[in-house]
């Protein structure tokens, strides 16, 4: 077994563990922290069903962002939708036989790769050239875009120029899931692609990528507007501690 096979096997075990445990711990932290007061941004739905509807429009259509800025919305939405398609396309590396719908979306997944780069590039142009957005950007904000573009570009690079042995790659990942190591092809573009993906997974739980689970826990979006109808009881309801010692 080659060094690359062992290295990437271990890398992906580690990356998967860090990703799952890291994100899981974050989610647990969000879930455990109490929301002391009702703070939905109103007008807000008054029922749980309504809240689910609001959340769907946020997560699927980026409704608030749509209201905010059409450029950021279209670029961000195209990127995320494309990313979803690309991820679904990659399911074929992890299942056998490949589900029919995964087979059917394969060509769209390729177009999505280009759309992803287009969306990311547009966002980066704005980050570089819109003065307000440049002002609020840290180096990590630029690097994150670079990383995602590099992942997409290296993937498309393999598809069109520097081909690799796709069945072997699939064998490798199927094997990883059974703790059964199969040799990984060592084409440079593949190794670059996989390294970047592993890096993304490792960075995820420590970065702004936490917006993905975060949005579901955002009290301004996930609370129903019903404080008069249903008493929201939290630690502050029962807190006995007066702000200052009474001196009457």
């Amino acid at each position, binding site marked *: 077994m080659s060094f690359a096979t062992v290295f990437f096997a271990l890398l992906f075990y580690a990356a998967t563990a860090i990703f799952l445990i890291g994100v899981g711990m*974050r989610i647990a932290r*969000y879930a455990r*922290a*109490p*929301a*002391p*007061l*009702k*703070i939905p*941004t*109103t*007008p*807000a739905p*008054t029922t749980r069903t309504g809240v689910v509807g609001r959340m769907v429009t946020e997560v699927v259509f*980026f409704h*608030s*962002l749509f*209201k*905010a*800025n059409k450029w*950021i919305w279209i670029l*961000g939405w195209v990127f995320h939708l494309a990313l979803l398609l690309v991820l679904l396309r990659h399911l074929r590396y992890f299942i056998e036989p490949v589900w029919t719908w995964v087979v059917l979306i394969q060509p769209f997944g390729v177009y999505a790769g280009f759309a992803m780069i287009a969306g990311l590039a547009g*966002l980066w142009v*704005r*980050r570089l050239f*819109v*003065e*307000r*957005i440049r*002002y*609020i*950007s*840290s*180096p*990590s904000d630029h*690097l994150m875009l670079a990383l995602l573009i590099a992942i997409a570009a290296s993937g498309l690079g393999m598809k069109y120029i520097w081909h690799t042995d796709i069945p072997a790659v699939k064998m490798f990942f199927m094997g990883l899931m059974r703790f059964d190591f199969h040799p990984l092809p060592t084409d440079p573009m593949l190794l670059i692609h996989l390294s970047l993906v592993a890096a993304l997974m490792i960075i995820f739980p*420590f*970065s*702004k990528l*936490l*917006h993905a689970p975060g*949005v579901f*826990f*955002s*009290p*301004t*979006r996930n609370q129903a*507007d019903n*404080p*008069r*109808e249903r008493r*929201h009881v939290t*630690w*502050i*309801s029962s*807190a006995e501690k*007066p*702000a*200052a*010692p009474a001196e009457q």
Partner: protein
Amino acid sequence: MADFETPEVKEYLDIPALKRGVMGNSKPFVSKEQFQEPLGFPGELVDNWQQVAVDKLGELLKTNRGLQVFMDSCVKCGACTDKCHYFLGTSDPRNMPVARQDLLRGVYRRYYTLPGKLFPKLVGAMDLTEDLLDQWYSYYHQCSECRRCSVYCPYGIDTAEVTMAARDIMNAVGKGQKYSNEIIGKVFKIGNNLGLPQPALEDTLEGLEEEVKEDTGADVRYPLDEEGAEVLLVTPSADFFAEPHVDGLIGYGKVFHQAGISWTLSSHASEAANFGLFIGSMENMKRIAMRIREAALDLGVKRIVFGECGHAWRVAYSFLNTLAGPFDFLDPRYPVPQHICEVTYDLIQRGALTFDKSANDHRRVTFHDSCNVARASRMGDMPGGQFIIPREIIKAVCNHYYDMPPDTIGEATFCCGGGGGLLTDDLMELRVKGALPRMQALKQVVEENGVTHLAAICAICKSQFSKVLPYYGFQMDQIVSVHQLVSDAIVLGQKQ
């Protein structure tokens, strides 16, 4: 008038080019020991303030899910960057909501995240230095906690929550704001923001009864501490004498009078405002809120109604049940609490009030949605009722009503520029510049529709506009209370 320039009102609201640090010197007076202690805060900056601040931040992250999620989730997309009235009015990039949040987020990353500990420069993490604390003090007092940015954030990040957390931390280390903290002290000691003791209140209310009698011939009552009244009215203390607030209070009295509802004010809870919200102190907010429960119990009322006050309505509508509930001792047929506009609107719907709309014919009116009512509460039984009900009331009492442009009202409403604990003379430049977006929208309806008056249901908005309208070439009396319009049009006496 002052040592700054009033921004020019153009045809359209421009997104300004950034002028770094131009508002860095805008700071309200720092609180003193005498104002800090009644609230349970240290009197001056404590020696180990850095540690205390970092620990306090950690405590807030654990006890407030919103703050934790907001600290992690921002992707710096820029959606909020052109949404803040203070940014639009001052051009200072630190007044862009995300940049304001980042003053705290940088510290969060430095002390509470791995990348911030390892590679601070890379992820914008910052040490909590004295200089940064100064920036906090400056820029967290350039946010009116209006939540406009939270409407547009794809994750619902609410800068108001971040500002409140930062102010709570600053109070915990002994760097509080004089204006808010002194006022809260007055509420604890005397019962209201203005420090009006019970005898002064009684005098004022008697004076109002005489005035209304003289004007209308009707015996409208303005009762104080009357046990057994049906309604406890809790209203901002500015309503007792400030203009145009008091005209609103006169209106509430006429509505109750005409509907035959017995009501009373309370000298114990003679203030609707709750500045505990502004300084982000849950404990103080709760302590202030408890007065209302106590007054309702003492007076044996059946309903609680709030007067025209924006943030007070937020605390009342959204938080009162949590902070001071349950209110199972009140009449279950009415929501607890109710807004005076809900009461008036219901009476209008039932045909219980008669109006002579021509009494307001000398006014062409527009309505300013106050931020805390618009984006942090509701009226009536459906989402958005807070936009419909006040407008329906105005239309029922005025013949000439015109809305300002849609992107400046409703959930997109612009703050008056004086909310969130900033309604103080030591922040005059900020208040004038922050009013720019609202003034721009007002100018538009003045020019297009001949609007003469701006109606509002918030004591802070009313005081702020009285002060800043003249800077923009308007008259200070162009701001009116919604219930002032009701008051002028309502027909008193026997209903036909």
